[in-house]
């Protein structure tokens, strides 16, 4: 903390949450079906204090499943999640469960569906305060609600409004205020800005950065928008078909992407400032097979660099640059920069 206050990065940032070989499978089909959907497979990562980690990937890559496991909505099929060093599987009592959900709240994608329309906006905030901070009196709860509203950039008189009176951006700020009221350590934000208008998004991203810098909250920012991830996040995890394809400090991953999927993802980002390249790639963007997947790299059908090994051995993460890992056979064997899509 002291070094952060001095404006220096902490030499050994304190680890807040860690997953080890986290796996979540879903059985699909009828009762007799043995088909298994591998939503998340053997995923290990960590989130430090005061850090925004972006979890990026296409739909079906398992990023929301990870958020739900971290929120204890799903139990992992195997593997473990440690929060402040303690395994989540050991949470037994209601008291512990409540404490955890207060420390690790979630902000949802759709601000039009996540706030109860028949209550005033203050209802959700006051309720979570009552539940998670029972020591506060009714008057203190109101003061606290006004305080968190202030932090997220809403006037305290907004507390008395009904959700329909608020715009999408304001509703999403209410979502963050509710999370903040519980004095969280880590906010799980699942696509928090994707439903908002472009002109409003930046304000929410700036708010997330403010929560990290001023309130010391960590955020797991789940998104498919790499540009917004770069804008706020410290580290990036790129998911593909339930596995981590690449992870590292975000600037390093974006300037030196080593996994062909990361390169494909970056080449697809619309960038008005970039020169025109319409004929650049022919990738059809078909989703990968995650139902009963065979061993081997799951990206190999789309990968222009795939070699024989890719069809036999599932690649694992290996450090290719300082703090920057990729799960790719080709990138791991070649010392130089591999460029599949550019």
């Amino acid at each position, binding site marked *: 903390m002291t070094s952060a206050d001095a404006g220096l990065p902490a030499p050994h940032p304190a680890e807040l949450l860690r997953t080890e070989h986290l796996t979540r499978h879903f059985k699909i089909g009828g009762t007799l079906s043995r088909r298994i959907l591998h939503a998340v497979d053997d995923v290990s990562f960590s989130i430090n204090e005061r850090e925004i980690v972006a979890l990026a990937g296409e739909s079906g890559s398992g990023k929301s499943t990870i958020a739900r496991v971290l929120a204890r909505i799903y139990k992992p099929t195997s593997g473990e999640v440690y929060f402040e060093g303690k395994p989540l599987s050991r949470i037994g009592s209601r008291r512990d469960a409540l404490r955890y959900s207060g420390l690790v709240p979630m902000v949802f994608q759709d601000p039009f569906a996540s706030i109860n329309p028949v209550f005033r906006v203050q209802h959700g905030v006051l309720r979570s305060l009552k539940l998670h901070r029972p020591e506060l009196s009714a008057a203190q709860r109101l003061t606290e609600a006004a305080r968190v509203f202030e932090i997220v950039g809403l006037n305290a008189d907004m507390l008395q409004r009904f959700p329909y009176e608020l715009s999408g951006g304001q509703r999403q700020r209410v979502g963050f205020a509710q999370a903040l009221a519980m004095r969280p350590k880590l906010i799980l934000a699942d696509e928090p800005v994707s439903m908002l208008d*472009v*002109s409003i998004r930046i304000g929410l991203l*700036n708010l997330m950065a403010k929560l990290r810098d001023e309130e010391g909250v960590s955020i797991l920012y789940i998104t498919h928008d790499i540009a917004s991830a770069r*804008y706020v996040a410290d580290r990036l995890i790129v998911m593909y078909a339930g596995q981590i394809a690449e992870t590292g400090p975000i600037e390093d991953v974006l300037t030196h992407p080593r996994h062909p999927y990361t390169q494909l993802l970056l080449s697809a980002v619309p960038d008005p400032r*970039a020169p025109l390249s*319409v*004929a650049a*790639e022919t990738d059809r963007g078909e989703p990968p097979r995650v139902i009963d997947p065979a061993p081997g790299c799951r990206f190999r059908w789309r990968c222009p660099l795939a070699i024989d090994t890719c069809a036999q051995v599932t690649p694992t993460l290996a450090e290719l640059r300082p703090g920057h890992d990729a799960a790719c056979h080709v990138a791991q064997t070649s010392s130089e920069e591999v460029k599949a899509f550019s």
Partner: protein
Amino acid sequence: MADVPVLEVSGLSVDYVLDRGNVRAVDDVSFSVDRGEFLGIVGESGCGKSTLLFAVAQLLAPPAMVAAGTVAFDGTNLVGMTDRQLSAIRWRDMSVVMQSAMNALNPVKTIGAQFKDAMRAHGKFTGEEIATRSAEVLRMVGIDPVHLRSYSHQLSGGMRQRAMIAMAMLFTPDLIIMDEPTSALDVVAQRSLMVQIKELQLAYGFAVIFVTHDMSLISHFSDQLMVMYAGQVDELGATRTIFDHPLHPYTQGLLEAFPSIRGPHVPLRGIPGNPPDLAHVPEGCRFHPRCPYAVEKCTQVAPDLYPLEGALVRCLRRHDGSLDG
């Protein structure tokens, strides 16, 4: 007829007739689309862009109605036509790909059966002709014709969207109207669909009107760009010109609201405030409460759409030259 624009919209206004009074969702919009041209329409939710599309395609349903103006398609005014007259044009000469195209396909019919319905509804064709044409359009969008026997749930989101575009091309129309066709897709699929639309457009010469809230998406694909705000056109001109040199403060704000994946890290502000409720639009310039350059007259005088540097701009300060850069 070659120099008649495919579509010429002039002075088009659309009202929602409500108990508490009329709400004007589209206010005096004029533009034209030439043969083979790609027009991008950009705006935030509630700016009237989807209502405008519905009006162009004559798909408005009460309480929405055209209050003024004309929509000339190949030189013929569509406003006031009966459904019977319209059905001769719809789908044959002008087709629409909707935002919810992901769910616009019938889940209990195969793709082929839906193509057959569309063709039967707009002409007399033999089964063989239908089968040949259906296979042909699917191939055009890069889907294997075996999927004519597939149901929509068996296709991925990107493929469903492509199938919708294939269906829109059954009769090789002059104009395809698309309402955010890529918004439900992720970036890689989105990019490849955009490239595909552009390739098809170049190959078959149809015009496209593409509505989106994501300005960066069409930066490389559209010829003309129209920016809408609160039911009005704020800026209209060549896409590249607008991206390189946006004139309206709102367009500038939209462009500066995108973080980039390249270049230096710059703090962005977005546009403060929220788009207005169309039932209570601000006096004067509709953008003035959110505009960093607003001066007193912006709060009083409603600006026109002024021609400036080859574009059209609705800004008083641009018009009188007091705003540079």
